């Protein structure tokens, strides 16, 4: 699964002639090793386990009766319409959530940057609040918000005569309702990181743009966004992969219903593992999730790694 990618050869040769030679290399190794070890134990080892387990039909606690089925679990996934619809729901959720988060998040960060620093700071601190709240509390808050009788959402909708809106109860609107909750929770993340990225853009560039007569939009498109690209790619990677694995909010708000219209891959895998007790199949679903993520976000990873050469 790991994308092995060697740096261009020219760089390697330059390294051997560079002034800081082997000892620096060792220092670099020592610097990277602890982090790599932590990730290896907590993530790569389980990944290996999941890969092996996904080729068995087995239940937790009944390891001795496990049967090697090779790729049957994967075939089973693609034969199950519920699994496929969970995959599609997950993809739809990710696209909607990511699009809205990036749009609102980057927009608000740029807007905040244009205010005087003091006001910007206070507002940014307030805007950061939802991010700091536990997902359990977020679902609690939004269950209350979406309550058709007492909830604020319906109260506001009634101003516009929209109180008939299906919200969490209708198969056509439930997924989007959860997207809204997710956006509420995750936009602050985009604002915080984008704001950190914006600090690195030198003030001179803005002045230069102003002298060149660029308007607000022109500055945004020609100066801000190009310099933010690396931050934005990292954000899309992190936020997108988180959204693709959404679990807490769905579990708390709808449990995957109505009629599986909000069932995500994580919800589906969880049900297989701890309700249906099919650990092997659940691991296959986890592996498929991982493969889908690599297919969707792999190109961005490569892109982001390459951008090193550009800087």
């Amino acid at each position, binding site marked *: 699964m*790991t994308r092995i990618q060697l*740096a261009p050869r020219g760089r390697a040769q330059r390294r051997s002639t560079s002034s800081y030679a082997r000892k620096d290399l060792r220092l670099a190794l020592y610097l990277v090793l602890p982090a790599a070890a*932590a990730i290896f134990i907590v*993530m790569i080892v*389980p990944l290996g386990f999941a890969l092996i387990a996904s080729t068995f039909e087995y239940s937790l606690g009944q390891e001795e009766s496990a049967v090697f089925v090779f790729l049957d679990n994967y075939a089973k996934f693609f034969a199950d319409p519920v699994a496929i619809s969970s995959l599609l729901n997950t993809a739809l959720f990710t696209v909607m959530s990511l699009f809205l988060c990036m749009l609102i998040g980057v927009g608000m960060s740029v807007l905040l940057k244009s205010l005087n620093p003091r006001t910007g700071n206070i507002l940014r601190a307030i805007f950061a609040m*939802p991010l700091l709240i536990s997902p*359990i509390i977020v679902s609690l808050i939004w269950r209350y918000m979406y309550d058709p009788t007492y909830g604020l959402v319906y109260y506001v909708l009634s101003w516009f005569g929209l109180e008939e809106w299906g919200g969490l109860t209708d198969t056509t609107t439930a997924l989007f309702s959860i997207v809204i909750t997710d956006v509420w929770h995750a936009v602050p993340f985009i604002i915080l990181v984008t704001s950190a990225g914006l600090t690195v853009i030198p003030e001179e560039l803005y002045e230069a743009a102003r002298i060149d007569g660029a308007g607000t939009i022109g500055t945004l498109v020609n100066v801000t966004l190009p310099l933010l690209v690396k931050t934005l790619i990292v954000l899309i990677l992190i936020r997108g992969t988180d959204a693709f694995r959404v679990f807490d909010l769905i579990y708390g708000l709808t449990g995957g219903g109505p009629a599986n219209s909000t069932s995500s891959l994580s919800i589906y895998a*969880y049900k297989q593992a701890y309700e249906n007790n099919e650990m092997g199949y659940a*691991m296959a679903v986890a592996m498929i999730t991982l493969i889908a993520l690599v297919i969707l976000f792999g190109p961005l990873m490569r892109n982001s790694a390459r951008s090193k050469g550009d800087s």
Partner: protein
Amino acid sequence: MTKRALVTIAKWLVIVLFLLWTVVPIALIIVNSFKRAKDIFTDVPKIFFEPTLDNYVNAFTKSDFGLYFINSTVVAVCSTFIVIVLATFASYGLTSFELRFANSVANGFLVGKLVPGIAMMLPIFVIINAVGLRGTLVGPVLAHVALNLPFAVWLLMGFFRDIPRELEHAAMIDGCTRMQAFWRVMLPVVVPGIAAVFILSAQYSWNELLFSLQLTTLETYTLPVGIASFVGAISVDWGLSSAAATVTMVPMIIIGFFVQKYIAEGTTGGAVKG
């Protein structure tokens, strides 16, 4: 002039709307935490009600909320500290030494981040149990560190890459050792990134439920475990869970308030320009 005024009005309108969108749901929960159950669900929202502290008293007496608070603090402080140290070193090591394998390691970190939670729980549980650390806070700390590292490393790598190499070289020519140059020249420049990592790891660790519940025992439970027991699938005690939610979110919000200013300002952001 009028066009400018219009733009300003539009700008502030957007900000006020976003402010309401952000604050109102949180305010509702905080207000509910001071209400009696009967006052929470009324046809017309009760704005004037007799505030009560009963929910808070219950939260602390019905469960070990004080203990959970301490455990959460220990887990969040330890894991955040370790994440910052490891991520800063690793990202510096991966960007500033022209390592041949830097890109593959960085990508490997990110693949780690993609592993679904459901695949992680069982192996980690078995490992933690095998080394005799089940029921200690080491389990959640280790899990939180690893889950936060990929993002932290990637974010900080971006910052280190943006620092002109000359800056470091100049410091070393001035007689600094490599590590001195790192401490004095490089580190200050990445402070906004570290601040972002701080907030993001701390909030994650403070709020994480799954590992904090499954890898621990009742002596080492954290706040989210306590809240989940009030919210539970069987019945929701709205007043009690609102109080517990408030106790849990307020410290994070206060810390966020203080730390986030480093994100926007940095400390010596000017150094980059030089």
